[in-house]
């Protein structure tokens, strides 16, 4: 390993360390009016603040529900536990919802991870290419023939909580008192269509069929084929690759 590789490994470890450390860098950084640790801290802080602020912008509704202090506190743990693996930072934060699932301080707001899933889906679809959709009149036939699939322009969020209603509360479209967690499970489809990203609640057979396609279950139960046109009407279905 070159000297530079060793230095870069030690520097990376120091930036990602939860505590101030010069381990592996002792004697390598010049001091002066500021100590080596103080100088290194400029880079530690740049990393933490830059990334935390950037990712926080993706989750305004999570912030509305738990407060920006709580969100940033959770993000500070997340960015040290799962630092970015690539420089396209708009793709960083995909794992934050799953991180919240296991984040003990968030156990009092058990729905928050699913809200984060919806916000991540919105963010991700804003940079997606729109693909051709399956026309509703063709949907059931295509599905029976095995070449219908959920569109790459949609994301499914299956929640044990009324997550679409909570999302609407966050957006100011529903008063908070109109939603109770006991209202139960909701399945949300986040869909990009006509350059707009929208959130739709799916219910009954539509939700069942979407979950079935999402899980890759084959064959689709017979009673669900009737809902294929409904999913297509909501811009949620495309053809499998290679089918014309």
């Amino acid at each position, binding site marked *: 390993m070159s000297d530079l590789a060793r230095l*870069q490994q030690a520097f990376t470890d120091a930036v990602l360390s939860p505590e101030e450390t010069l381990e592996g860098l002792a004697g390598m*950084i010049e001091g002066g009016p*500021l100590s080596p640790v103080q100088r290194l801290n400029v*880079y530690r802080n740049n*990393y933490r603040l830059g990334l935390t602020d950037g990712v926080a912008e993706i989750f305004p509704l999570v912030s509305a529900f738990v407060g920006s202090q709580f969100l940033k506190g959770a993000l500070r743990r997340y960015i040290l536990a799962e630092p970015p693996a690539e*420089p*396209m930072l708009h793709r960083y934060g995909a794992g934050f919802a799953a991180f919240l699932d296991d984040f003990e301080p968030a156990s009092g707001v058990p729905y928050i991870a699913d809200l984060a899933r919806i916000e991540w889906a919105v963010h991700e679809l804003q940079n997606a290419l729109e693909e051709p959709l399956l026309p509703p009149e063709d949907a059931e036939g295509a599905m029976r023939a095995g070449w219908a699939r959920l569109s790459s322009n949609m994301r499914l969020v299956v929640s044990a909580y009324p997550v679409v209603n909570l999302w609407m509360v966050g957006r100011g479209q529903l008063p908070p008192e109109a939603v109770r967690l006991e209202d139960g499970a909701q399945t949300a489809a986040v869909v990009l269509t006509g350059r707009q990203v929208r959130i739709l609640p799916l219910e009954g057979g539509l939700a069942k069929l979407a979950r079935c396609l999402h899980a890759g279950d084959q064959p689709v139960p017979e009673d669900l084929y009737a809902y294929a046109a409904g999913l297509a009407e909501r811009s949620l279905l495309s053809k499998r690759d290679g089918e014309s």
Partner: protein
Amino acid sequence: MTSPLPLSPSGSRTPVGVGLKSQHYQDVLQTSPALTFFEVHAENYMVPGGAHRRYLDAISDKYALSLHGVGMSLGSAEGLDEAHVRRFRALVEDYRPWLISEHLAWSRRGDTYLNDLLPLPLNAESLEIVTRNVSHLQDAIGRRVLVENPSAYLSFETTDIPEVEFLSALADRTGCGLLLDVNNVFVSATNMGWDAAAYLDAVPTAAVGEIHLAGHALKDIDGVPLRIDDHGSRVAEDVWELYRHTIARLGARPTLIEWDTNVPSLATLVSEAGIAEGIMRQEAVAREVDRV
């Protein structure tokens, strides 16, 4: 003698631009500000589709484009990330930018990408590594790359080549150009106790293909002042003076105003660019007068 000033794609002898921010997309298209170019961070446009690409398509139809990478990690001992080189090349092919630039810095180690421009020890070993990486990038994209001096908050005991000499050697060895960030020179010089004017006077004239200007913040760390390159305010007076000094020496160069935090109105950015343009005009006249 013909004018030594470089001509921009639009024919301007005093080409100025600003960093393109998403909050200004609409404004740019509606008001068509008098600028020669816009600069974008390459990584923000490494997306399959969406509004960012649509706006960049529209804006790059009307203005010259400068593609500025922030994640290539030219200083990585392990070499460049080939997947990232391919993504960068795809953008170069899609947009055919006027200028292409990256940084004398590193940000990647193994599978970890640190969201910052991290400092390098400047010595024979790192010069070898950065030379290899810059040559590789230029070969892969088939274009000359301008390499930018970063802001420094520390230096390594193993540094034995001054930054400006390191960059000159890099330009000699790879044929790369330099993106001279005058604000970064000021910030690093103040933080590290260098002489900013001496640095600027040692920059190899012919290599400089672009100049960056930005605002910075003054922090107090336990009573010790430290300048932080936050791109969050107007260009400081000290930096304008160094810019004038630089233009007097180099002649006009494509000059960009960067403003990435607390982003102001587009009009404010354009007015900062106008100051740079004015300085280039004045110095061009002064050079003509000197020649008479």
